[in-house]
């Protein structure tokens, strides 16, 4: 065999390498149904417990307040048959006003009448975060097992190695988001009137963009690490702040200024908003445009950084 022949035989292509590595990860994942169930269970529990227990809409319900049948208002000179001075209002009218005020507060704060719908959609962001953080850990694991070194010693594109991790995490997030949205619908998620099944494509696109961006961060952080502890610590450090300093659980406009500033750069805010716009809110296309632009930039910048780092640091 001449040298030319050997070189011709191997034609490593980015797409084929990428698909082979991604398929490996997806197979591993599908082979483990217990993990699969747990991954869905976690956001489901959050959604069920937090979304249903924090019945913020219920605060304004008429059963939450005790009023007498008639409410006397002192200071008026008119005497009423009961003999008391002042104006007497009908309690039922007050309750009515209270309930209407309540739903208007809910509407203005959350954009929807029930907190559960608001919060269930926020769970999509949580899924993306928990799933993508495993991409960082799996690269450490591959390094430890020697698998990464073996892959590096083949002519497969370095970018394919990184992208396979990113894609794998993103696919998982998309799958789990589908499951969680379907479950939320069964549990009482109220879709807006502008919702069409086509909007789901938009939801996927938004999840894809955030998934690519976030997993690039996690991978970049753990690419040279040989210890599992470090990416784990990093993840637990940033997960909570990222979720709470965003509109995942609560609208940002009621947060203090400094927190709003964080939420404004937090990509979770944009994903959550995009998904809400597409499902439970009447779609506001200009807001949606902002969301997608931000998510797109986030994904593009971080994926590029991930690739650059991969080139630099995969080979030590």
């Amino acid at each position, binding site marked *: 065999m001449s*040298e030319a022949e050997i070189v011709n035989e191997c034609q490593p*292509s980015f797409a084929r390498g990428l698909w082979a590595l991604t398929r490996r990860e997806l*197979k*591993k994942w599908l082979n483990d149904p217990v993990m699969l169930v747990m991954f869905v269970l976690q956001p489901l529990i959050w959604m069920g417990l937090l979304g249903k227990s924090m019945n913020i809409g219920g605060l304004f319900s008429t059963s939450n307040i005790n009023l007498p049948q008639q409410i006397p208002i002192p200071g008026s000179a008119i005497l009423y048959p009961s003999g008391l001075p002042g104006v007497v209002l009908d309690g039922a009218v007050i309750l009515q006003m209270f309930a209407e005020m309540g739903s208007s507060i809910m509407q203005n704060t959350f954009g929807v009448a029930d907190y559960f719908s608001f919060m269930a959609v926020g769970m999509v962001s949580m899924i993306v975060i928990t799933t993508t953080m495993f991409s960082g850990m799996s690269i450490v694991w591959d390094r430890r097992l020697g698998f990464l070194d073996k892959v590096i010693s083949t002519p497969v594109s370095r970018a394919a190695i990184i992208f396979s991790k990113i894609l794998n995490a993103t696919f998982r997030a998309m799958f789990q988001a589908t499951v969680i949205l379907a479950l939320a619908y069964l549990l009482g998620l109220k879709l807006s009137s502008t919702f069409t099944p086509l909007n789901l494509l938009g939801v996927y696109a938004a999840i894809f963009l955030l998934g690519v961006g976030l997993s690039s961060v996690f991978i970049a952080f753990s690419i040279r690490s040989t210890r599992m502890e470090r990416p784990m610590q990093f993840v637990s450090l940033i997960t909570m702040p990222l979720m709470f300093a965003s509109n995942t659980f609560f609208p940002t406009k009621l947060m203090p200024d400094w927190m709003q500033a964080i939420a404004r750069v937090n990509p979770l805010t944009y994903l959550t908003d995009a998904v809400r716009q597409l499902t439970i809110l009447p779609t506001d296309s200009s807001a949606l445009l902002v969301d997608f632009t931000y998510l797109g930039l986030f994904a593009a910048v971080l994926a590029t950084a991930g690739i650059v780092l991969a080139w630099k640091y995969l*080979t030590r």
Partner: protein
Amino acid sequence: MIKAENLTKVFNRNLVAVDHITFSVREGEVFGFLGPNGAGKTTTINMLITVLKPTEGAASVLGFDVVKQANEVRKVIGVVPQEYTADEDLTGYENIMLCADLYGIPRDVAKQRALELLELVELSDFKDKRVETYSGGMRRRLELACGLINRPKVLFLDEPTLGLDVQTRAATWEYIRRLKNEYGMTLFMTTHYLEEADVLCDRIAIIDHGKIVVTGSPSELKDSLGGDIITITVKENADVTSVIQSVENVKEVRKENGAYRVKAANGEVTAPIIIEALRKKGYTVTRLSLTEPTLNEVYLEYTGRAFRNTEESRMEFMAQRFQLWRARRR
């Protein structure tokens, strides 16, 4: 086939793992890197297979520079790593096909070759079983098959028989011989098993503390010792080095673990003369053994007999433990 010149790797700016080594491997030979744990064998292999970047110096495989033409190198080499890197959740066949995909071997060619290779390493019956169920020996054979999927011109084997039982080790040696004889492949292997280096390698480089201490064929190395080794124990506590030294044909005397290690030409004749000389001075020989040089002797000659407190990286240590654990599970 392989050339290395002043190849050096320094980790974290102060740990010199490989220290300016120079060697070359000829076409069609089995070249062995022999040395204790932590001597720099795996680091050297990792630089040659483009996994690590050399800190200094240069190396080439088939004329391709391992840094500047890394991708060309990757196409023509096969690697059988020390660890079991096959994916446990995939079957043996799927693992080989994954390697084929990484090399970009046309699908139809790859399928046929994967089946051939599984046949070669006698895993055909298990090809659709998940690797999780494989024994250590089977995993090692699968690694070998994966390393051969691109018909490499040079195959790198890092500790190919680490942790294997005697039968599997013998079988692995047989595969290695076949690769060399039937396929004319050049093999570069590391080992710390002396007999392995002795029976398999055409040439050996003994590496210690990141430096090559000697290179040659096993027989050259044995001859270089310049004679037999006589080990003598004396009843008395006194130092009798000078007495032994005075005997004709004795080349060198070293005291090790309370015994004298004597290097002498014509051992069978010299040994009785040494006993006689010691007795004349009033010493009693309690024990004597005569060995013709083995690779073992060569090895100890060049690396010393002292126990090693090597500094192994935490990761290497964990990887080894994990591997042994997996090998032992079945």
